[in-house]
């Protein structure tokens, strides 16, 4: 039972961690809570359904053309990255020198806009993911694990490793430098605008993958899923220490575990409250999170 819940929590936590990476990367560089990040994840889920539908209508179902799924993921990532990139250029870039909370309000505006845009174009009712896959069960030490769950856990781990390796590349180093000090980074020849755009592109791409994974895991999608997922991923980022990439991974997995264990042993009705309670406790006791360093507020 406990082991089963751990597996469920790990699945959920992997997804949270991937979304949280987008929050933490943007916060690290812009000190902005990108409120609309959850909506990118929601867009990813919808785009997954839309592209799979297009492939199916072309006669390329996942049954006879396994590449369809891969192509869907690829297209979704590309489009979500485009949305993330555009979002930054339109709604955040003009506010880069504005008072701190102006971009936050702008982000809330983007979030409401995207939610209602999807609601108006795709309808307010739940959408069903076109087909189920990965339903073969794997029995492992009295634990029941579907292939899909295993795929989600493995994909999350791969993406996290990938991002970790990316940090070591030239671009990744430039990104870390920008996060430390934008002015200094610009002085040593880093194009800060490009780095910020890259951050949004990578974050949105990760959220897109998370969106498809959740859509296929739960089988249904709604225009409002982005808000709750966004808040939970943000909680995960804060839990691990916002601005810290390993922190986001750790926080996401911890939060997934807390939630599934809480739902199983305390009350499933209050499933969504656990994240908020964790968030409040962390912010009030240790706002810098588990792995976050202490940052002095600049005067």
């Amino acid at each position, binding site marked *: 039972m406990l082991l089963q819940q751990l597996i469920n929590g790990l699945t959920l936590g992997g997804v949270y961690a991937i979304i949280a990476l987008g929050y933490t990367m943007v916060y690290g560089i812009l*000190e*902005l*809570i990108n409120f609309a990040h959850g909506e990118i994840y929601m867009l990813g889920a*919808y*785009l997954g359904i*839309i*592209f799979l539908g297009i492939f199916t209508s072309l006669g390329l179902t996942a049954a006879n053309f396994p590449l369809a799924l891969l192509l869907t993921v690829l297209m979704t990532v590309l*489009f979500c990255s*485009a*949305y993330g990139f*555009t979002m930054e250029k*339109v*709604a955040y870039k*003009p*506010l880069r020198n*504005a*008072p*701190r*909370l*102006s*971009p*936050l*309000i*702008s982000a*809330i*505006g*983007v*979030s*409401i*806009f*995207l*939610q*209602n*845009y*999807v609601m*108006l*174009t*795709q309808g307010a009712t739940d959408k069903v993911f076109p087909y189920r896959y990965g339903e073969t069960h794997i029995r492992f030490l009295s634990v029941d694990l579907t292939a899909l769950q295993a795929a989600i856990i493995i994909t999350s781990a791969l993406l996290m490793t990938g991002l970790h390796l990316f940090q070591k590349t030239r671009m990744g180093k430039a990104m870390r430098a920008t996060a430390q000090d934008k002015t200094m980074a610009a002085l040593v020849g880093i194009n800060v605008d490009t780095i910020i755009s890259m951050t949004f592109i990578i974050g949105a791409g990760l959220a897109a993958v998370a969106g498809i994974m959740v859509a296929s895991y739960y089988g249904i999608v709604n225009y409002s899923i982005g*808000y709750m997922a966004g*808040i939970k991923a*943000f909680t995960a980022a*804060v839990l691990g220490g916002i601005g810290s990439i390993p922190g986001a991974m750790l926080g996401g997995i911890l939060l997934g575990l807390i939630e599934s264990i809480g739902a199983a042993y305390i009350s499933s*009705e*209050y499933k*969504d*409250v656990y994240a*908020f*309670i964790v*968030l*409040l406790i962390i*912010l*009030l006791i240790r*706002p810098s999170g588990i792995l976050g360093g202490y940052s002095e*507020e600049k*005067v």
Partner: protein
Amino acid sequence: MKGVVQDQARSSRKSIAQRARESAGRSVMLRSFFIAAWAALLFLPFHGIRSALVLFAGIFAGLPVMQSAMRLGGPGEWMQRLPGFRAFTLRSFPFLRTSALPVFLLALFVLPFTLKDYYLDVLVMSGIYMLLALGLNVIVGFTGLLNLGFAAFYAIGAYTYALLNTKFGLGFWPSLPLSAVAATLSGLLLAVPALRLRGDYLAIVTLGFGEILRIVLNNWDSLTNGPNGISGIAPPFLFGISLGSLNFYYYLVLGLVLLSVLIIRRVKSSRVGRAWIAIRENEIAASSVGVNVTRYKLYAFAFGTFWAGIAGALFAAKMRFVSPESFTFMESVFILSMVILGGIGNIYGALAGAFILVLLPEALRDVQMYRMLLLGAGLVLLMIFRPQGILGGRKGVRIRG
């Protein structure tokens, strides 16, 4: 000789200018092509190829026209030129300050005799939102603390009256102050630990508080009847007579809004209000001249949430029904939008913002579906082009933590 030189200079200048204009024209074409193509691409998955092509054509043709219109004056200047966007305060309406003020008030008092019930109903709702916007304005506008969970205090006010009335049979008049006190106390309860946090973290904590409260209201069936809400709330009584008519609510709300404006105006110019504004402008400077920052922030939270409690009790009494659905995060954003639209920190701005945002969707029935879509886009545009709101004056208010 001199004239020839001048002529030559003029002609060469002209040709340079012309060349510049030509190349600018070409780059405008190129730019609008890319923008149109990009927008069409983003549009594609949700609308299909045909709509994307229409959008492409529209933007490609429309953008150069818009840009040349913009060149007559930057977007900011255009906005400033619109009469509605002028930086005005009540002082710009001298008639309101002198003899016309009583006339204006009199007009407000006779309004129920001339309006249909439907319009009166809308006015009552906008009055309730005015109280909310005024309260939130104290926290966000005067003190500069972003609160994303203001609907929670509204909910506490509404549920306090609903529960006192349905479980204990307490009437509206004794419940009204109790609702306000309950909201104030919960505001203090949240503020004491939360105020140590910086701006955006504080915003998230208030958001979390609002969500926790809503989920609890939704699931605590034995007390709140869960998502079905509490119905059968009594209207106010006076000397045994039910005052449940719309006209009565109108006067009640009108009276409370006028009272709150008077009180908030006085408080704003008092020592406390000046301390709030000092904190908003520069917290460190304020504390260095002896303002007890934490204490005044607590005052702001208590004073702001007080009005949310009053508004909540009014809402419960008018609707005779409360459910968690009325107090979502969107509601908090809606109230915040009123404050931002009107002009952060401006009392009359909060009134105008509430009035506009309640009336506009009613007036534009056909676009009701697009209400939230437009609200979202409007928030972004407002932050970029007019962060100080419609009544906020030219300089605008900086909101910080």
